[in-house]
């Protein structure tokens, strides 16, 4: 009774307000029934969002041209996290650039390391030992799971489902602890090397990985119980930010953002590297090209990653984890302090770096966010003459205006989330 009175009060206030704006309540009701057509006068205005907005996953500013709550135009303003990585790289040896790539996409550093060392190896035409290829594949897939868990938690948090975050971060911690065991760091890992990896995969890490992939499926089901039939989640993700496959290709989207529209483009299948062609897995594809499909794809990719990890662990060959081509790899540390020539060799590799043949190459790698490519021009010295980073987040942002038009202002947050955007990579 009391609440009804309150409602009565509010509606009379509303009516007064509407009369002042020469709109009667009946026309409003009619307008609502007609699906918010032009009979409501809405103001057009420009809204500045960011750069310090919690949902932008970094520092990103968007200028929104709004008609009421509807987006007419969205202009992203990038560059708040620009650190000039490409310029710095021209003054560093290849081994010094690997830690720089950690800082691009700082939630999946391993994947960036992998993309960079692959580009340099393509330039050198270097063959990597088989065990190293398997270790790299395993670690890259672990990183994919870490990244997608992070994405799922934050995307749900952006939409308002807070509890998913706690569950996904519980599993993410387990994997980050494994990273710490492998290379001493949790986020900026610096684990891959040109010609192999920095350290071997120890037996306790292998056991822990087996344990993880065996218990991971129930965890995915657990996340799904929180989201799959959640009406708010469905309302906020279904039919939002729809993009057709043709448009997605034309915009150069990549990763789950492209595959959500049903385009079968995955570099792990198209140009197999690592051990991806030696194990059995599939590329999940969406149908509708909306946010829900991209969510579904990331969930499926985590399942596929777990399967790839298990198969690679089963097949893990023995042998060296670093190439024995000492033009690029460091001599054994034990001999450096006893052998003059080895010491000089070590010194030259640190100071001058290894030389790459003159030429240029592009090498793309399927990271959790999409195609991360390195275009390297070499002039024959130990440093790249020019290094261009093709960052998936940056290219995906190019389609932001196209995908946001016509949706509500509240959907902006979910559209940022669906790209899995990380500004460190976008602005470089």
């Amino acid at each position, binding site marked *: 009774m009391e609440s009804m009175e309150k409602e009565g009060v509010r509606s009379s206030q509303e009516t007064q307000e509407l009369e002042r704006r020469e709109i009667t309540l009946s026309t409003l009701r009619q307008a609502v029934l007609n699906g918010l057509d032009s009979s409501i006068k809405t103001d057009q205005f420009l809204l500045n969002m960011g750069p310090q907005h919690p949902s932008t996953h970094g520092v990103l500013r968007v200028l929104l041209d709004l008609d009421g709550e509807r987006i007419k135009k969205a202009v992203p303003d990038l560059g708040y996290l620009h650190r000039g990585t490409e*310029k710095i790289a021209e003054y560093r040896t290849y081994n010094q650039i690997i830690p720089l790539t950690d800082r691009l996409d700082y939630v999946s550093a391993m994947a960036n390391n992998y993309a960079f060392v692959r580009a340099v190896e393509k*330039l050198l035409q270097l063959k990597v030992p088989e065990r190293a290829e398997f270790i790299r594949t395993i670690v890259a897939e672990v990183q994919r799971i870490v990244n997608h868990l992070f994405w799922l938690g934050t995307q749900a948090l952006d939409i308002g489902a807070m509890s998913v975050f706690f569950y996904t971060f519980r599993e993410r911690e387990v994997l980050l602890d494994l990273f710490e065991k492998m290379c001493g760091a949790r986020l900026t890992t610096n684990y891959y090397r040109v010609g192999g990896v920095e350290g071997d995969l120890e037996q306790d890490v292998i056991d822990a990985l087996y344990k993880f992939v065996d218990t991971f499926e129930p965890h995915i089901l657990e996340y799904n119980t929180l989201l799959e039939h959640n009406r708010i989640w469905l309302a906020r993700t279904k039919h939002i930010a729809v993009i057709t496959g043709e448009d997605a290709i034309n915009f150069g989207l990549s990763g789950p953002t492209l595959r959500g529209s049903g385009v079968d483009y995955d570099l792990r299948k198209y140009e197999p590297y690592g051990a991806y062609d030696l194990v059995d897995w599939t590329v999940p594809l969406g149908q509708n090209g909306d946010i829900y499909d991209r969510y579904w794809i990331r969930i499926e990719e985590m399942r596929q990653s777990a399967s790839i990890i298990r198969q690679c662990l089963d097949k893990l060959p023995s042998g060296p984890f670093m190439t024995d081509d000492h033009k690029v790899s460091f001599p054994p540390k034990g001999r450096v302090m006893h052998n003059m020539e080895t010491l000089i060799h070590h010194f030259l590799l640190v100071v001058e770096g290894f030389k790459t043949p003159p*030429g240029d190459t592009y090498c793309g790698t399927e990271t959790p966010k999409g195609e991360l490519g390195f275009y390297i021009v070499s002039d024959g010295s130990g440093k790249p003459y020019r290094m261009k980073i093709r960052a998936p987040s940056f290219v995906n*942002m*190019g389609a932001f205006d196209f995908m946001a038009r016509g949706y509500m202002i509240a959907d902006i947050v979910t559209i940022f989330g669906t790209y899995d955007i990380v500004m460190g990579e976008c*602005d470089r």
Partner: protein
Amino acid sequence: MHPVAESLRRRFPDVVTGSREALGDLTVYLRESGALDVFRALHDDEEFRYDYIVDVTSVDYPMDADRFEVVYILYSIPRRHRIMVKIRVPESHPVVDSIVSIWRGAEFMEREVYDMMGIQFRGHPDLRRILMPDDYDEGYPLRKDFPLVGKGWRDDFSFVPKYFENLPPLPEGRK
């Protein structure tokens, strides 16, 4: 010669100046004038179908007559083939045709090339700086004559407070 390069040479003899295959990549060199027709053919024609734009970037060779090289990396999803297209432009007139009308994803990539290397794109819908501030007038950071550090020391900027000189007086009783 690669069949794609051969076909391009046959169809555009005035524009295609050469091709190269190295490290498994096909590179085609174009002249600036008429390059847009080649790009349109690369996108539309059934024999090429390069529907996916991977990247647009640029390299600076300060010693060369045509100083800048604009590099386009295209991929064909149906044919699973990658191609690099390169155009050289001189410093006096660093302008190429924009390909945004063919691949809309090129909009941000071309803006980045303009921002970092100062190459203009004719017909680009919104050619502004993208990563650097809009009012940045120190030049183009990825050119080779732009230094890594040393565009003036901190003390050279009038708006930065000077240390060790003109310090404000200490409060009473403090040394």
